[in-house]
């Protein structure tokens, strides 16, 4: 293996950008910060492409199997012998793939933002945060140690928080960023405990060792982890489920998804980067990272992953059909697509053909990054033009935003699974995997896929068709080259990425996986997708009252879906009513009145006693003498009769 320590530069360059712009940006790089950030990231991107090339085509493969390489590892914090947080780089197909995805999308967003956020007061800060995010995300994907991943996991969370709260003076943005952070934080607590469990049983935090120890049926560690049980479930399963909770939080899986729609309060490019293409797939990535353990040692946990993914996919799709804020529609669609990836992992097995789900999941991750980023950036262009997120303010924009329109359409086709766009390929593989291993999930996925097509085209038609074209003032067109170039590049990706023979590179065990293309199998989902598209066209291509009628006829369901199945309210109830009112308030009350009260009571009692016995000191000298005599007699009696020696 050649010297690959330069890989460390990939995350470090954005970090440098963050520090540089964060500390000096406001004073020195007021206008140039965007360029600085972008160029640093460009370097990063090139480096990761180079790395990917090197890994996939040069040194990564040994004896036909892609290896897990650790070119760099330093001990960062040693807890005890063997248990240490190491900062390292791991190179394996998924991390390399993620490197490329993250840097590429991030680069696109950087470029796009140059125009999108031009003239903003906190422009340097924005680029600093982007740098921080990119650094964290890259650090996350190359983590060689489970604690390292947790560290970057948290960093990703915080940069997401910062970016969502970028418009800090909007109360809704503040609320959204808090919500995002707290919900993911809650999930992270699970992750943390999961890490603790896994590390305790395996005695290590290092991924390679961990996986090795917990997948080898002979190892004592695995035996211990499997035999130890709590509530009838083995410790290992608990650990993995808890880790998955962490992943589910970040990946907005049901029921921890509530933060994602709100997170759309951030600038649209940020949504594209974080809440569509990269960060939200971290959960998928995490499960993929630990996939051998899931698949080999704790199938029950993996099954849970599958069901959670499928349910999330369906629910999100249903909700997406009813939302009117275009970014929210996209957000739910993201959730739905990530659900796909999750259940794809959930239905997968380790190794060989059975590992199709794994490959498919990664493949979908890859393609999804392209078209979802594209969708968001396109939506951004629309919003940039309209200054509104609401569908009702839009319509007929295809004339004014031609490039946006085309690229958006490509993305919609891709996500709807229309061949030959990228989404088609990855989705087919997923459905295939599900079909083979869990038909229940398969049918759920099928419905979802139809719904996906429907709501995407509902979106598409509402924006670009529906109403007659309106002139929106004296407008600045589509936002120039900086905004259009990413759209075009991503559209190319969304159109063509499906043709990459993904299984050759990424598979559960590193072996080459040839994905066969089953034409017959594809008919059902494609048909369903097309049906969805046409239904959407029927409803939304022209302005009419059909949608309202349908909505009215489905009153209850529609309302429930529109209100996101009241999950937010449920959370609100739990936090406000239970945590705040039933725990926090009593705790504060208890502290103030009981604990503190006791302290004060001690003082008051002392004073009270002091007041009560003041009569002893009556000022009467005769009484003093009497006490004197009583004291004498008392002492004498005590020591003569009672306390004898």
């Amino acid at each position: 293996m050649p010297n690959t320590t330069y890989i460390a530069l990939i995350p470090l360059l954005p970090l440098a950008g963050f520090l540089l712009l964060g500390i000096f940006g406001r004073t020195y790089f007021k206008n140039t910060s965007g360029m600085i950030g972008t160029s640093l990231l460009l370097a990063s991107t090139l480096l990761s492409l180079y790395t990917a090339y090197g890994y996939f085509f040069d040194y990564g493969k040994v004896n036909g199997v892609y290896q897990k390489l650790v070119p760099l590892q330093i001990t960062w914090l040693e807890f005890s012998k063997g248990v240490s947080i190491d900062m390292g780089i791991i190179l394996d197909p998924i991390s390399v793939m993620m490197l490329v995805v993250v840097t590429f999308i991030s680069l696109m967003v950087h470029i796009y933002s140059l125009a999108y956020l031009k003239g903003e007061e906190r422009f340097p800060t924005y680029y600093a945060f982007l740098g921080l995010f990119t650094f964290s995300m890259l650090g996350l994907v190359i983590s060689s140690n489970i604690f390292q991943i947790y560290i970057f996991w948290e960093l990703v969370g915080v940069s997401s928080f910062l970016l969502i709260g970028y418009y800090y003076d909007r109360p809704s943005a503040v609320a959204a960023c808090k919500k995002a952070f707290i919900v993911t934080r809650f999930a992270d607590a699970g992750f943390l405990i999961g890490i603790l469990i896994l590390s305790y049983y395996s005695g290590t935090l290092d991924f390679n060792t961990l996986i090795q120890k917990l997948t080898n049926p002979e190892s004592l560690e695995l035996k211990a982890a499997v035999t130890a049980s709590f509530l009838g479930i083995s410790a290992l399963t608990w650990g993995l489920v808890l880790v998955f909770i962490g992943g589910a939080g970040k990946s907005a899986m049901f029921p921890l998804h509530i933060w994602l729609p709100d997170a759309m309060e951030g600038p649209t490019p940020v949504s594209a980067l974080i809440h569509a293409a990269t960060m939200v797939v971290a959960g998928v990535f995490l499960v993929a990272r630990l996939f051998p353990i899931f698949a080999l040692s704790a199938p029950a946990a993996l099954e849970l992953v599958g069901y959670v993914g499928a349910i999330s996919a369906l629910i999100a799709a249903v909700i997406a059909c009813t939302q009117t804020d275009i970014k929210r529609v996209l957000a739910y669609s993201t959730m739905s697509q990530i659900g796909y990836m999750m259940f794809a992992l959930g239905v997968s097995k380790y190794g060989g053909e059975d590992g199709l789900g794994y490959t498919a999941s990664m493949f979908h991750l890859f393609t999804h990054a392209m078209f979802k980023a594209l969708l968001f950036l396109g939506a951004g262009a629309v919003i940039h033009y309209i200054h509104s997120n609401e569908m009702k303010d839009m319509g007929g924009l295809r004339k004014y935003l031609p490039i946006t329109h085309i690229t958006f359409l490509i993305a919609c086709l891709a996500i709807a699974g229309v061949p030959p766009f990228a989404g088609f390929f990855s989705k087919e593989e997923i459905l295939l995997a599900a079909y083979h291993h869990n038909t229940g999930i398969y049918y759920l996925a099928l419905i979802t896929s139809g719904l996906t097509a429907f709501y995407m085209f509902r979106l598409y038609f509402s924006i670009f068709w529906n109403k007659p074209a309106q002139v929106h003032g004296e407008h600045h067109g589509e936002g120039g080259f900086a905004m259009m170039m990413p759209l075009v590049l991503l559209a190319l990706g969304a159109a063509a990425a499906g043709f990459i023979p993904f299984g050759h590179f990424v598979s559960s065990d590193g072996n080459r996986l040839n994905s066969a293309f089953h034409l017959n199998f594809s008919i059902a989902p494609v048909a369903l997708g097309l049906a969805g598209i046409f239904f959407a066209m029927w409803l939304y291509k022209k302005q009419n009252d059909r949608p309202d009628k349908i909505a009215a006829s489905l009153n209850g369901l529609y309302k429930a879906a529109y209100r996101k199945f009241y999950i937010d309210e449920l959370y609100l109830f739990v936090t406000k009513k239970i945590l705040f009112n039933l725990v926090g308030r009593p705790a504060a009350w208890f502290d103030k009145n009981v604990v503190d009260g006791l302290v004060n009571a001690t003082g008051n009692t002392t004073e009270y006693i002091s007041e009560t016995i003041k009569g002893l000191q009556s000022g009467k000298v005769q009484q003093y003498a009497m006490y004197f005599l009583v004291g004498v007699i008392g002492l004498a009696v005590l020591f003569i009769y009672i306390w004898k020696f």
Partner: protein
Amino acid sequence: MNELLTIMKSEWVISLLIFLLLFIKLGKGMKNESLLLLIQVLLLLNFIGGFFFNTEGSLFAGMYHSTALIILQKNILSLGVYLISLLFADWFKRSEHLTEYFILMLSALLGMFFLISSGNLLMFFLALELATIPVAAMANFDLGKKISSEAAMKMILSSAFSSGILLFGISLVYGATGTINFAELPAQMNNGPLHILAFVFLFTAFAFKLSVVPFHLWTADVYEGAPMATTSFLSVLSKGAVAFIFISTLNKVFLPMQEIWYNMVMILSILTMIIGNLFALRQQNIKRFLAFSSIAQVGFILVGVSGKEPESTASVVFFILVYLFSNLAAFGVAGIISAMTGKENVNDYKGLYQTNPFLSWVLALALFSLAGIPPTAGFFGKLFLLTAGGTKASYLFITIAALNMIVSLYYYLRVIRAVFMDKNEEPVEKLVVNPSARLGLLICGAGILLTGILSWVYDYIQSLC
């Protein structure tokens, strides 16, 4: 005869001073200022002289004895008198009976010297009276004030009563053992009921002088009514002298009754600390406040007393020294303020720091020392008392003592708070402190700061025990 001079040197010196003052009084030629200065110089010389030409030994067939420790104790008392002469200069200067006051004070001091040197019960009794009766007269020296006479009356009657009890006890001891010599008594004492009874009578007389609860009730009234100088004399010197003889008597004469007095001391110590603290909590008058606080301090002294020799003696002597500095400083400040403004209430001290930072700092130091806060000497004093007590005591006892320190801190802080924190529209005006009083306060302050940290002070005391 030479021996008589050298061994009893300190007593001779004091007697000489008394007579000198008498002559001066008869001569009637001096103004108060110069007279006071003369007295101060004489007392300083007396204190310094106390360190030289000392001979240990015993006289009058053991009736009087002197050891290095006793000499040290006497020096401590001399120092106290000297400081009092400095601190209350304002009051003295205005006094019509300056000479008489000092004659009485020196007589009382002489009584204390004899007291701690006494070798038999007769000497003990006489010296105790000599150390008490003049003080009662001294308490009345604010002649125009009713409370001063009231205080003196309470003091003389109470002490007469306690003398009666003491004498009854002595008579029983005498009857039971046939001797009044300290040297012969231990062989005769035992834990028989009559002995216990006699011992209790004796013990309570000590307790009375030390203001141990429940024999303490005279203390606060007398302290409040008496002139500040008398109060400080009473609270520091009388208490100190009695504590010195108390601990040596317990450990030498009543050694056979060790268990009994140990438990007695323990019970009374706990009572004293608690009651003293509880009463101190709600006092408004600074003298009364200091009176109760000094009662609580006695409780701590008793903790030290209850310990094993020689640690107990060393710690008690050390504590008395520290206590002398601290209490005199506190009384000194209170005395200056009282003499100049007539204000004696804690509330009057509000905002004192704004006008009189020097007095405030000295007062604060003194109170911290009394509360046992490092780095003041009081910290070491209290800690050594507790440690000495720990040589024998139970955890419970020490814990109670330690917890009482919190209560005492509370009320000391009350004064600190008034001085430093509370706002006051009309604080005590800026006072011009008499130079000698300033000197006295500085000495006290230095004593408070240095006595503890310079460990050789304690080690010296320990080496003598």
